[in-house]
């Protein structure tokens, strides 16, 4: 199995892009992260991660049309590529497999 290297934050950003389905750009991604995880992240972090993900080929981007609300400035909209979704699925699968291996009692005990 080919290993996909995705950091924790990268994984979250990639998931957000997948969730937003075509509406993902800097603002929406950071807002979603804030809302869903409660983490306050700087815009720079998101921006850098998106660029990195694009360099790795997990997302692709294009400039959207100009809208009046941001002073006519275009958005860069991100989409998950086939490689990206494959990577997410791999991770999901790996996690599921690992979950299966956890003995049923351990987690309950430690959870107490």
């Amino acid at each position, binding site marked *: 199995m080919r290993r996909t290297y995705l950091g924790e934050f990268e994984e979250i950003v990639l998931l957000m892009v997948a969730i937003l389905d075509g509406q993902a750009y800097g603002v929406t991604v950071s807002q979603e992260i804030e809302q869903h995880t409660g983490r306050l992240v700087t815009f720079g972090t998101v*921006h850098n991660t998106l660029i990195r993900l*694009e360099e790795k080929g997990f997302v692709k981007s294009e400039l959207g049309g100009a809208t009046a609300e941001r002073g006519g400035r275009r958005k860069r909209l991100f989409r998950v590529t086939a490689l990206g979704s494959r990577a997410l699925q791999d991770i999901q699968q790996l996690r599921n497999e690992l979950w299966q291996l956890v003995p049923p009692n351990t987690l309950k005990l430690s959870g107490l």
Partner: protein
Amino acid sequence: MNPANQPPRNRTSGPPRWAKRLLRWLHPANTLEEVEGDLDELYAYWYERAGEPQASLRYLLNVLSVMPPFVRRRQQVNPYPQPSSFHPDMIRSYVKIALRNLWRSKGYAAVNVVGLSVAFCICLFLFLVAYRQLTFDSFHKDGDRIFQTYLFANDPERVSRTGGMPLPLTPALKAEFPEVETAARVMSGRLSLVEYRGKFFDKMVVQTDPDFLTLFSFPLIKGSPDVALRDLSSIVVSETMAKTVFGNEDPVGKYLLIGTESNKKQYIVSGIIADSPDNSSVRYDALVRIETTPNYQNDKENWHANSHRTFIKIVPEADQAAVEARLKPFAQKYFAGTIQDLLKKGAKPDDRGDVFAIRLQKLANVHFDRDVSDGKGAPIALIYVLIGIGVFILSIASINFINMSIARSFTRAKEVGVRKSLGALKNQLFVQIWSESTFICFIGFVVGIILTCLLLGTFNTTFQAKFTLSYAFQPGFIAWMAGVFLVVTLVAGGYPAWQMARFNAVEVLKGKVSLKKPGLVRNALIVTQFAMSSLLACCTIIAIQQVDHMRRQPVGFDKEQVISLPVGNQANGRQVLGRLRNKLANDPTVLAVTGTSINLGKGKDRVTSRSTFGFTYKGKQIATDWLLVDYDYLKTLNMKLLAGRDFDPAYAADSINRVVVTESLAKLINARQPVGAFIRDDSDTTGTKSEIIGVVPDFKLYSVADEARPIAMHLSNREDIHYIFVRVAPQSLAQSMDKIKQIWREVAPQAEFLGSFLDENVDGWYQNEESMSQIFSLAASIAMLLSCLGLFAIALLVIEQRTKEIGIRKVMGASVASIIIVLSRDFVKLVMIALAIAIPLAWFGMQKWLDNYAERITISIWIFLAVGLVSILVALATVSFHSVKAALMNPVKSLRSE
């Protein structure tokens, strides 16, 4: 936050302005748009949720997070393929455009090629000369540790530095100085007669020490440096000499006889050494031990007979200053008498605290130090002058190139504009235009090299040089010339190309860029050009005047109608002289015949030697030239006696110890009545003394630059006569030469006939100055020519651009003359500025040069006025060639074009 406490802020005012500016300034350009938009949107979102201060704060924080060094840069992905500038299609396009351009501007290209090739040709010659001189003695291994010793004396009459050393000095040096690794005495003078199996050769046999072979890096081809000169009867011969004397035989072990009748000596060849290179200060055909010289036994403990040069190699740890410091006590120990005499004369210590000292000259500098190298070297200033002239001429040609390229660049501005709007990058344009100019430079360079090859013969005869093409193909020289070429292309081609590549495409295509205003750069360059050429012109005229002035200086003897005949070593001078006297006794066209040991001027055998006599006369140190002559010397050279009489065969004692002296020597002796006074050394107890029988005016013996020189003429039978002078009747110079040539075969069959006229020989004394003034005049005329060539082309361009103006002026009623004045005025102004720069420089430089001469001209202001006037006239004439044509043009033609 309570919105009521906040003044209602305009939502559109948005985040803090300065933060935004910071973002725009520092954020990478290719992601600025989206990031700025995103941040604005986020600001609005924060503002809605948390109010202005919170929003501003978060905005600021986030701006910081997208600043370098935190921000990641998005890689630029170019959607269009970027073909390389070396794509075959691009190159084809470049070549096509280049050829079209060249074809359209054939005239300018020709001017450039001619200018550059002439300049390159001249430079090649000058740099060749300079390179040869500067690499003198550079081939020795450890050359930086080799020095020649010289004696310095701070004589109040004349500070003297001389390379002549006494024989005991070198052994003493080696014994007392551990830092002297090796030391060799080098004695060379006249050619010696070498005999091998009945064949005779004139060769330069140098007397030296065995250390010679290890001190210098002349490679031994046969034999070992340790033993080759171990025996007093060993001789090491050069490769060439081995070939000429022994042919194909193996010379090692063969016997050679060296010397003339009385002191012939036999030597065994013990080794073969490579020829001394052309650029070596030490020249030889063969080496023998210095102990074999005739006077060695007499002089080996004499610290006052200076006869040879000494070279030392010091150990790597020692340095020159330290050794010189250690030489001070050494000099005081062995030259105490000399120092006493100097002090008595009132000599003061110089700035290094010495009245008299033994000092060291670096081997690399020996060639340029005429005092130390017996006047054989070249003054280093002359070398720099040559390089300077070469650089001048090259820069004049380069300036032409730059000026024309810039002037013409505006006609090509459209091409640049179109190329730029089609996506050409600045670098591509630069390389394109630059390589076009490099191509022209290259053609100029190649033509220059061809010219050099063709003119090499002429050059060699004019400057008595022996350059061959192979000489120019040394790696060092090739590197030098390649460097020159590179600099020229970089400067001459690079600057205009850079200018053109900078054109703003939009302005060019709108037609806004034009050459309405003459560039400051162009004017500055024209000024530089003319300043250089008028500088050279002034220097030339002054140099020629000085040479003329020196020629007119009286030499002290009548040099006309005298034939000088070098006897050479293969015949006995006295015998030849006797036979010649007999043959010519009854010839009415021969007025007088005499013999001497020293030729006057530079004869065909190019040999000079010198014999001096130093003595203490009534407590005063006197040094005089000791000149061997024969009867009728004064008559042959038309010297007038001031007092006393000439040598006369009637007095037997004349040929033993009587002398005729020059006025200067008579003055030095300070006798009220010089005739009848005796010259003798105070310390000499043997009673040898010479009676003065006559006094003649001072005359020049070695150079015209000689100042009044004490000379004593004597008739000793013990010394050999080397030259015969014959005075012939004025009407029959050429015939006499032929006749003497005939007779020469009878009287001296074994010696080559090398007769020449004395006045030609004396001209050889001015050879350096003559060569220099020739180089100067050549350089000055070429510089002037090139400058005018450039001005010619520039004037054409400028006037072409002003056709319409001229048409309008004519329509408004301007006369032809006034138009010519308007057109020429600008150029004349430039030339005048150039003159204002050049003349003071020329005056200053030539004053310095003239200070070297005892007899010198005063620089007249008229020279500068004349040069100035001529420069202006020449510039005017050049410009008027076009301006007259422009002024005469029918205005209808020039104005109708629109």
